């Protein structure tokens, strides 16, 4: 995908024009240490509004930690996490909960509640956080389930679903509150290529229908380049490349090229 093309190649829908203005999320000098290891080491990054941004990097590079900072699940030791100019790392718990209403998040394993059915899982944020009536909640939940193709599975429990279905339910739950920003932590990891592409296609379709800002961690290289406007490459807790997908793909950084090609030889030696 490119900012200039008006038709999205993979899903065939019209691309939304790139909005003007400041980035919706801005990370400034972010530092975080976990278990004695510096996971984020001075991260500076802008997430553009109403675009799909993919974050790629080796396992343990700090991608999930960075994503959790964006929604305030982790607080940095140094630096700022600005959401529309507001540093959410300095907010009180109550203020942070208010900001999180703008977000939806899809966790790596789906993080569905085992004791609730598919319908109840998707309805959960609406029942807990809104004053909507039961009828309206039902309408919205069924519409979201239809969008991810799981209307028929609404009475099932998470342990009765396949990995791909769990991610689709989690996606329906993440977007049921109509958030402005959706964060995806490896939405396709561990899925076969057909289901992986169908989920990426679903994400792309949803983007075109609603115009969410989407940030997605992915190991699906190079496939993810087809589905994202921007790419961020994280290595050893640092952003080493970030920008429009076409530019990152052409990067001269040897690590970026090694990651894209999946070469064993290169600046990173794992074994």
């Amino acid at each position, binding site marked *: 995908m490119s900012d200039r093309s008006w038709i999205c190649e993979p899903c065939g829908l019209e691309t939304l024009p790139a909005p003007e203005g400041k980035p919706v999320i801005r990370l400034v000098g972010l530092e975080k240490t976990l278990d004695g290891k510096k996971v984020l080491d001075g991260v500076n990054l802008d997430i553009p509004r109403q675009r799909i941004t993919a974050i790629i990097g080796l396992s343990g590079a700090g991608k999930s930690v960075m994503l959790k900072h964006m929604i305030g699940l982790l607080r940095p030791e140094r630096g700022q996490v600005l959401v529309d100019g507001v540093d959410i790392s300095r907010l009180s718990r109550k203020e942070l909960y208010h900001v999180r209403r703008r977000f939806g998040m899809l966790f790596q394993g789906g*993080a*569905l509640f*085992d004791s609730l059915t598919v319908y109840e899982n998707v309805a959960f944020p609406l029942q807990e956080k809104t004053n909507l009536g039961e009828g309206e909640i039902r309408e919205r939940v069924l519409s979201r389930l239809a969008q991810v193709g799981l209307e028929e599975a609404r009475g099932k429990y998470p342990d009765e679903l396949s990995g791909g279905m769990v991610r689709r339910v989690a996606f329906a739950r993440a977007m049921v509150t109509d958030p402005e920003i959706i964060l995806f932590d490896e939405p396709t990891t561990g899925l076969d290529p057909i289901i992986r592409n169908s989920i990426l296609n679903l994400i792309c379709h949803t983007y075109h229908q609603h115009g969410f800002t989407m940030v997605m961690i992915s190991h699906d290289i190079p496939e993810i380049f087809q589905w994202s406007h921007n790419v961020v490459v994280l290595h050893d807790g640092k952003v080493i490349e970030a920008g429009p997908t076409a530019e990152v793909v052409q990067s001269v950084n040897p690590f970026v090229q090694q990651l894209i090609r999946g070469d064993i030889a290169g600046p990173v030696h794992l074994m």
Partner: protein
Amino acid sequence: MMVSLAETIGKRTLQAIDHMGKMAIFLTGTIASLPFPPYQLRRIVKQIHFIGVKSLFVIVLTAAFTGMVLALQGYYTLRKFGSEGLLGSAVALSLIRELGPVLTALMVTGRAGSALTAEIGIMRIGEQIDSLESMGIDPIKFIVVPRLCAAILSVPLLTAIFDVVGILGGYLVGVKLLGVNAGVFFGQMKASLEWKDVANGFLKSVVFGLIIAWVCTFKGYFTGRGAEGVSQSTTSAVVLSSVMVLVGDYFLTSVLL
């Protein structure tokens, strides 16, 4: 060698203080959130069913045999002094003041407390707690508060059932098996038992309910990584809450007596 030993002791002491501080903050935060909506009444009822109703069988079984063995031991001890008539009051006082609250708490810890830790621990490692946070839902309010309220309500009720069943067990062995006069058994019980004994037993059971829910939810909430982390948290929750119940029992008894 000495420096290393001092370092180890210092490190362990600091870790223990840090842990106690975290536990205190966790409890304070939970109690502070109690007066504010949403009140989670449905979830409290569900937890009362889990902690209270589902523990009934094990409580009744334990209580019956505790009362029976108390009567058996008490009868042979009291007979040495020709005081078999005091059997009813010995059984009732032991149960209501001490054994009822303590054994109920220990059984609830084993049956429900361990399950609470494991359940919350699995929610933590499955990112369900993070998922609640990401939706702007306070996990303490959603997960911990209903369990704390349910334990504080259930443990005293289970203790009352334990006391009654235990006394019936003592009656069966003392009166029906060993031949103590039924009128004397209950008459002495009534004469020696005061409302203060019942109130003290009740107070203990409320405190024990709080301890169980506090320790078990804390251990689950801050569980380690993976299945091993959950298993360690569950074990340490059962051990710590059992020890805290017994230590708490001593201090409560010394204050209340």
